[in-house]
């Protein structure tokens, strides 16, 4: 069977399963809609959290980013896993004991203030919307690549599917579809990785394989070989990296703290039965995430070595067929700068302008049959353009794996993108229906009315996300990575202080959150988007060499300091609030909220 038929088959089956689950798990009450009734088992919640967490970016792009960043890729690996330790130890059990529905619920009640709740709602919407637009785009890209439909049609199909199970099932529907999506995506990621590990090193476990010797019997370690290849081509050694230590440190910290502060992740821990289950399910979640996150660096090493060996200094006309297939999609490209008919891979950008992506001339072909690229960068000798996503997408073909494995990668990528989009949409809809309508605008709304409002806001959120997916504003891609900085700068300090510092009051928390998020937004707008200047300022102008991605760590520290200072000069929180804090610190009776 051809790849195309396999892809339709596998994607069709998985979608049928998701829809079936959605019909089976309809939500009948707001409690089911917001937190799946609060009775999800720790393992199921762990799987749902893992699927929620791992987006199209984790599945498709991460291994590629690591392949090109080498050691520096560790910021994502550690940053996006280490946050779960903070979540498990500092947040999840206490928020579960608190026993309400959303993050703004906690902020609003703990800081006895509508202002605090509004600030939290604003931050939750800001973080979730920046994040979800990228996901819908991801759904469209995966569809277009594997099913050969237009990206926009892909976004529409994705919207309809998500709409179906998010609106019908709420958190309950999302939770059980995410369990299914986790199984699909992890299987799809591991199968090619194991095959390739065996081919390259003879070791079936990728995590061990990339530290093993190359299978050609020479006794050379794979990593030494890749270090050698990289240096020979003029790059830094793969295992060394090129970012400064301070930058690596702050980015890792910002990602970790941001992970722990993301509302769509936190809210998953409201769905289990007891405090004990919240702790345990954080453990399961990280274990299940770690399976992919420890495999990705191995895939990166296999793919990078494979790519250099099979392409560098080879005659273009003798390259294997996968090169031409992916050149056709625009993810690979070659410009014969020195006219020798061979592909030379070197440091520097192949092309210039157009965000360093090649501009292909439609049908025109060069002397050797290659696609013609118009924006050549003559300053670099590099002749090979490689899109980072290719490292996961093309891996099965590069390694000559059967057609069903290639189709599996498509189903996995879709599962990853859809599960994350659904989780984010739920946060958006509950922020609107619960935090805004029920808690602030119309407190006397009936249970039925609130459920209806939740469904309507979910529909609206899907449409907005779909709109941004079809017409992505230029800044979305840049901002998605910074959603973590925003979460780190706003929620994390307010929640941690709310639990661990009884004296913390509303004045401190509100001023901390506002100053924190403003600092982050300003730094981001100035150094990432460049709206204050004519061009985006270069990295030499960053404060202490800290990149916008890493600035979240600084903004978080500013939030902590402001909160603590302001709180010393203002009134203590009222007695009832101090009692709430005492109450959330001890487990037991988590079936009921700590207060009404």
């Amino acid at each position, binding site marked *: 069977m051809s790849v195309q038929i396999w892809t339709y088959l596998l994607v069709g089956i998985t979608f049928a399963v998701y829809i079936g689950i959605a019909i089976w798990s309809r939500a009948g009450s707001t409690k089911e809609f917001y937190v799946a009734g609060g009775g999800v088992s720790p393992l199921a919640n762990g799987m749902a959290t893992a699927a929620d967490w791992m987006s199209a970016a984790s599945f498709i792009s991460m291994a590629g980013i690591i392949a090109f960043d080498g050691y520096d890729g560790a910021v994502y690996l550690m940053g996006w*896993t280490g946050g*779960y*330790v903070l979540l*498990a130890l500092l947040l999840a059990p206490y928020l579960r004991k608190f026993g309400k529905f959303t993050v703004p619920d906690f902020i609003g009640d703990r800081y006895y203030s509508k202002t605090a709740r509004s600030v939290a709602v604003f931050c939750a919407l800001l973080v979730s919307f920046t994040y979800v637009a990228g996901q819908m785009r991801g759904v469209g890209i995966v569809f277009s690549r594997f099913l050969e439909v237009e990206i926009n049609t892909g976004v529409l199909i994705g919207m309809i599917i998500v709409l179906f199970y998010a609106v019908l099932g709420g958190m309950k529907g999302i939770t059980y579809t995410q369990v299914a999506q986790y199984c699909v995506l992890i299987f799809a990621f591991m199968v090619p990785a194991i095959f390739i590990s065996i081919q390259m090193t003879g070791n079936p476990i990728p995590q061990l394989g990339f*530290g093993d010797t190359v299978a050609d019997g020479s006794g050379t370690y794979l*990593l030494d070989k890749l270090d050698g290849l990289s240096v020979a081509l003029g790059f830094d050694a793969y*295992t060394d990296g090129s970012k400064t230590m301070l930058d690596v440190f702050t980015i890792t910290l910002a990602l970790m703290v941001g992970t722990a502060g993301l509302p769509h992740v936190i809210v998953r821990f409201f769905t289990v039965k007891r405090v004990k289950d919240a702790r345990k399910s954080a453990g399961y979640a990280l274990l299940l995430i770690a399976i992919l996150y*420890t495999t990705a660096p191995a895939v990166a090493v296999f793919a990078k070595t494979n790519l250099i060996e099979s392409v560098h200094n080879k005659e273009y006309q003798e390259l294997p067929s996968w090169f031409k297939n992916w050149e056709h999609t625009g993810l690979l490209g070659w410009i014969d700068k020195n006219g020798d008919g061979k592909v030379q891979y070197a440091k520097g950008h192949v092309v210039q302008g157009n965000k360093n992506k090649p501009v292909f001339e439609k049908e025109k072909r060069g002397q050797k049959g290659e696609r013609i690229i118009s924006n050549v960068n003559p300053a670099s000798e590099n002749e090979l353009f490689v899109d980072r996503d290719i490292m996961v997408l093309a891996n099965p073909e590069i390694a000559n794996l059967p057609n069903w494995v290639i189709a599996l990668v498509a189903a996995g990528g879709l599962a990853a993108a859809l599960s994350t989009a659904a989780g984010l949409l739920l946060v958006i809809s509950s922020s609107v229906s619960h935090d805004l309508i029920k808690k602030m605008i119309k407190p006397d709304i009936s249970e039925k009315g609130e459920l209806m409002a939740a469904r309507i806001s979910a529909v609206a959120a899907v449409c907005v996300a779909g709109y941004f997916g079809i017409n992505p504003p230029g800044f979305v891609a840049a901002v998605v990575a910074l959603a973590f900085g925003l979460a780190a700068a706003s929620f994390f300090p307010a929640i941690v202080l709310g639990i661990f510092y009884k004296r913390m009051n509303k004045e401190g928390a509100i001023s901390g959150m506002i100053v924190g998020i403003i600092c982050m937004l300003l730094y981001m707008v100035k150094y990432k988007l460049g709206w204050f200047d004519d061009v985006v300022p270069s990295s030499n102008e960053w404060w202490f060499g800290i990149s916008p991605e890493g600035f979240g760590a600084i903004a978080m520290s500013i939030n902590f300091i402001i909160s603590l200072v302001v709180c010393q000069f203002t009134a203590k929180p009222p007695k009832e609030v101090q009692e709430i804090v005492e109450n959330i610190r001890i487990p037991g009776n988590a079936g009921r909220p700590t207060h009404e």
Partner: protein
Amino acid sequence: MTEKQKIANAYWKENIKYLFILLSIWFVVSYGAGILFKDWLNHIRLGGFRLGFWFAQQGAIYTFVILIFIYVRLMNKLDKKYGYDRE
């Protein structure tokens, strides 16, 4: 202070002690071994891995998983000790 509050305070103190120990390990394996002392650890080899690189891309993640499960065990025991395990 009532008897109930005393129990709650003692429980909280032990909880904080565990958090301190576990988060210290969390910091040491990631920021310590994976970032600050990476170059120094890279002189040591673990099969084909240089140790600092291994911590940054593998070891720290394994340790995170283990840390959470140790925390789960410790807290379950602590809940039992203070009688918070009954729902």
